[in-house]
């Protein structure tokens, strides 16, 4: 089953309700009305039993309703790793385990799916083997060019993984170095990682390099002083550093971790001269505050905010300092009354450049209409998201009751953008159409400075498929269930997945009406299931299903 809540909540909820639970009554085997979940926690790699593992059991329906009176329980495994929950009424339960040094997870967890345990007459729930994987860790020390530790540096951990069938690198953790320049990331899942560091020389003095000439007089605006000779050596920065000795993600060394690995990634930061960039902004009237911030795009979901310094030399003229050479995004933030607009421009900064962002105050605005194909109304909380494919920045906006939306607070640069529906759940984009931009799947292209209008054609996923997966006529648990649309190359948003529970049952929700093939694939969790060529092999062995709007249907499927 699919569990969307965080594990910590599972444990916490269980404890909160524990106060209500009377002491477990001694198991009475003759009583048929209560049952047991029993098993052993082991190290998934070595097979050794794990003593003192802590297990939390929650009825599956309480996960959507944390305030329900249903009780959750916690037990601790004994020295042999054996645990038992007794006195359970029949039902479906989610089990999770936690132990120091191991990664907390649900029973047979894959991604966010788990095998729920069905308890009742004739159900097998007493011979569970719960494997936990030892967490891996990455730690290291940061020193500067004088071999002094760098404290309070920003260390970022990126994880490379396959989600939705694509390879992506995502920022997953972030810590600061301590006073000894040391950092560590622990309890990591096995996988491939990258480490990056953003630090500033603690002694850096940037000052201001430019002066504003007025008429024939050399006037220092606001008393800003030019730098003295002695300060030039202090006008330095550390560019963002990737392990090891790289300045960007493509050049970074991947750190491959297996369960229990302890990797070391040390850094030695080298200062480079800071740039002083003159930025011309649109001349503003005194009611508008204008600010400039500098960001850097690092990975798919991560735009880092750089600690640049910005000094205004004159209205419409600013000097940005404290940045190294490189490619950055200059973000112009302008206040209009109560609203703030943010316009990003990607610039290559080198040799004290001059950047002009005055160009056009009329940057294209994206707006449009969200249409649901069955004509059903939208809830008031409906929201859509626009994401820049190049920069990775996101902007959200509300959708009105009539389906209209506008990203007017975020005038954009030409480029490629994706649209997503954030709220409500259960609404999926079938296609985009536009007279003013080229669309493809869920993306569109802004090519000119003209405003863009997009129509989002969405479908409601209100179908539901339940069923049982069978292997050689016996229910199979822990199997990956995939619902693939008849056209495998079509919209990836139409796929649904689940993991079969201990009685072989599964449930697929939010199914968009249409024709599908239902598949049950044993050991399918490492499969690149989103690749049509890979999935094609299994189609013949699946079940054809057709779903009408609001239909619920029950299907049995054979495990392949």
């Amino acid at each position, binding site marked *: 089953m699919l569990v969307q809540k965080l594990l910590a909540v599972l444990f916490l909820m269980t404890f909160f309700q524990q106060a209500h639970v009377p002491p477990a009554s001694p198991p009475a085997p003759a009583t048929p009305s209560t049952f047991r979940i029993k098993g052993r926690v082991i190290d998934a790699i070595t097979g050794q039993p794990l003593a003192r593992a802590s297990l939390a059991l929650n009825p599956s329906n309480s996960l959507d309703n944390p305030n329900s009176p249903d009780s959750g329980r*916690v037990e601790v495994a004994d020295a042999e790793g054996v645990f038992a929950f007794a006195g359970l009424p029949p039902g479906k339960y989610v089990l999770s385990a936690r132990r120091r040094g191991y990664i907390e997870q649900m029973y047979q967890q894959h991604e966010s799916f788990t095998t729920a345990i069905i308890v009742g007459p004739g159900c097998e729930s007493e011979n569970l083997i719960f494997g936990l994987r030892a967490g891996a860790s990455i730690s290291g020390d940061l020193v500067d060019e004088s071999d002094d530790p760098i404290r309070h540096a920003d260390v970022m951990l990126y994880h490379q993984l396959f989600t939705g069938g694509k390879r992506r690198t995502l920022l997953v953790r972030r810590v600061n170095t301590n006073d000894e320049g040391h950092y560590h990331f622990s309890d990591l899942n096995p996988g491939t990682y990258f480490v990056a560091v953003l630090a500033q020389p*603690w002694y850096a003095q940037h*000052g201001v390099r430019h002066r504003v000439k007025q008429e024939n007089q050399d006037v220092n605006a606001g008393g800003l*002083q030019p730098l003295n000779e*002695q300060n030039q*050596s202090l006008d330095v920065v550390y560019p963002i550093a990737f392990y090891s000795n790289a300045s960007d993600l493509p050049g970074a060394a991947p750190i491959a971790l297996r369960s229990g690995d302890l990797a070391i990634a040390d850094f030695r930061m080298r200062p480079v001269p800071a740039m002083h960039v003159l930025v011309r902004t649109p001349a503003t009237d005194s009611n508008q505050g204008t600010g400039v911030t500098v960001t850097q795009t690092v990975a798919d979901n991560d*735009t880092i905010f750089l600690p640049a310094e910005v000094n205004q030399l004159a209205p419409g003229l600013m000097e940005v300092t404290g940045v190294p050479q490189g490619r950055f995004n200059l973000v112009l*933030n302008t206040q209009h009354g109560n609203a703030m607009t943010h316009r990003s421009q990607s610039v290559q900064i080198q040799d004290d450049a001059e950047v002009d962002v005055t160009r056009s105050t009329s940057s294209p605005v994206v707006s449009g209409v969200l249409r649901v194909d069955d004509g059903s109304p939208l809830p008031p909380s409906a929201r859509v998201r626009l994401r820049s494919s190049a920069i990775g920045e996101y902007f959200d906006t509300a959708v009105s009751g009539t389906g209209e939306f506008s990203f007017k607070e975020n005038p954009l640069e030409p480029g490629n953008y994706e649209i997503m529906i954030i709220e409500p759940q259960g609404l999926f984009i079938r296609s985009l159409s536009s007279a003013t931009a080229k669309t493809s799947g869920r993306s569109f292209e802004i090519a000119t400075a003209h405003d863009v209008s997009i129509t989002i054609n969405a479908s409601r996923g209100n179908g539901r498929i339940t069923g049982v997966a069978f292997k050689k006529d016996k229910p199979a648990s822990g199997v990956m269930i995939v619902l693939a649309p008849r056209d495998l190359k079509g919209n990836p948003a139409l796929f649904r997945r689940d993991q079969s529970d201990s009685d072989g049952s599964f449930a697929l929700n939010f199914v968009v009406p249409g024709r599908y093939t239902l598949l049950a694939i044993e050991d399918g969790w490492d499969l690149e299931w989103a690749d049509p060529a890979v999935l094609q092999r299994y189609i013949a062995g699946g079940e054809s299903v057709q779903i009408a709007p609001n239909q619920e249907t029950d299907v049995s499927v054979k495990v392949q």
Partner: protein
Amino acid sequence: MLPRTVLFVLLTTSLLPGPYFERPLAVMVGSASAETHDSSSLVSPQNSNDDKYSLRGSVVNSLTGEPLRGVLVQVYLNGQSSMLTGADGRFQFDNLPAGQSTITVRKPGFFAEDDFQPSERGQGLATTGPNSSPVVLKLIPEGVIYGHIIDDDGEPIEGLPVELLVQHLQNGRKAWEQRTGAVTDEDGNFRIAELPPGNYFLSAGPSRNPVTFPAKLAQPGAQGIPLVYYPTGSELAAAAPISIAPGKKAEINFTLSPQPLYRVSGTLSGYSPSESVSLLLRNSAGIPLTYNSRFDAASGSFRIPWVPPGAYTLVADAPDGHGHSLTAAVPLTVNADVSGVHVILLPTVNIPIRMSVITSRTGTERFGEQENYFPAYVQLVARNEGLSERRYGSQQVGETGASSLELQNIAPGTYRVEVNPNGPLYVQSAMFGTTDLLESDLSVAPGSSPQPIEITLRDDVASLSGTVSLDNRPLSATILAISEHASATPRLQPTDATGGFQLSFLSPGAYKILAVDHPDRLEYSNPEILRKYLSKAREVMLLPDQSAKIDLELARVGE
């Protein structure tokens, strides 16, 4: 809308001078260090405008005396000049004009002397000129407290908060300050660095999430690590300080046993169903527990889970829906589940203040009608609050022309009253019913509607001046004027550089006047402590309108 991933900060676009620009101080230079210049280098800038001078010096570790490499030194003469010291700890700025300026030094891992003793005059000043000699500046190495926490089975405890409290003197009163703490990592280790020298009290726990330990399975219910002070015990009073000298790295380890956690439940009454109620348990140090308390407005019942054993005050607050507040405080001792606690929310009180000023020339005048001028402001300081001192200031109520002062939303309890005159006035009397606020505290009973505080001020103030000397040498110090009234805090006044002082707007009456060198090290609000210094104090009796003059001997704090 704001982008989700970019943390947005509007950077300054001001026309003000840049961040590193500080005005040079034009102050008579005292002794900056043992090795400074003589007074002939106080050359005024106009004399030798074109001559350029050098400023040389070195920076050393205050503990070991070793020179420090890589220290950032900054002076502010004709702009800001910065440089890093070399391997020998030396620095030299060239081409500076003559003059004086502050000189600052810093390096990660160290504190500057200025960080602790801002009242030390002459610190951090440098002078350039024809006869200036090299300066020596010191940096104080920071301290660290680190350690390891395990349970009685030897397993490390992870995720346990570790907090630091430091006791210092604020306005002559012992005050507690909480410093940034730490949380144990997966090996049970914690580390707190960047500590200035001082005495620290360390606490570990309570555990954020209840845990269950196998050996204790016989006991149902949640268990957790309660709050424990180093070296042992749950009360701050029993804690022993960890003394951190400059550069000290102290290792503190704990072995902690989980204790049962209990539930406190009961009912609340007197609340307004549409307003949100805040319920928390404060321990004896005044720190609130952060677990979720659950309150059901429909039935009035509440439940606070996972409470470690100990003594607490259950505090409830809610707005009454009409702009005022309701409050309640119930003391509790938790050694087992506590149920049936009944908490009655009662309105907080507003205490009106009535003031009159008597001028010595024309007789009584009643104030309160004059624009926005009030002859004095009143503050209540709550007692028995544990670590923190809470203050409530008087607020103006009513429209201009008919306004008065009031103390609003005061919860039941005991308070010290501070009246601060606004101008050349003194407090002749301050009464709350029959309680003389100059001698005793103000008590607010629950559910009472209190009478006003009546304050009478007079304008025939007295003053006192004089000089402080030691062995017949005048020197700078701080004067404490200790009045005869029990409630009054001593007045402080620093002398000038030659030991001369002036205390104005004093109430007539009997005083003990004391001159000390380090008022920041003296707990002068504590009569027991002050008594030891009184042999060096001079007694003086001030009459209305009198200006008196006395001479004092310096008393050194700590001897």
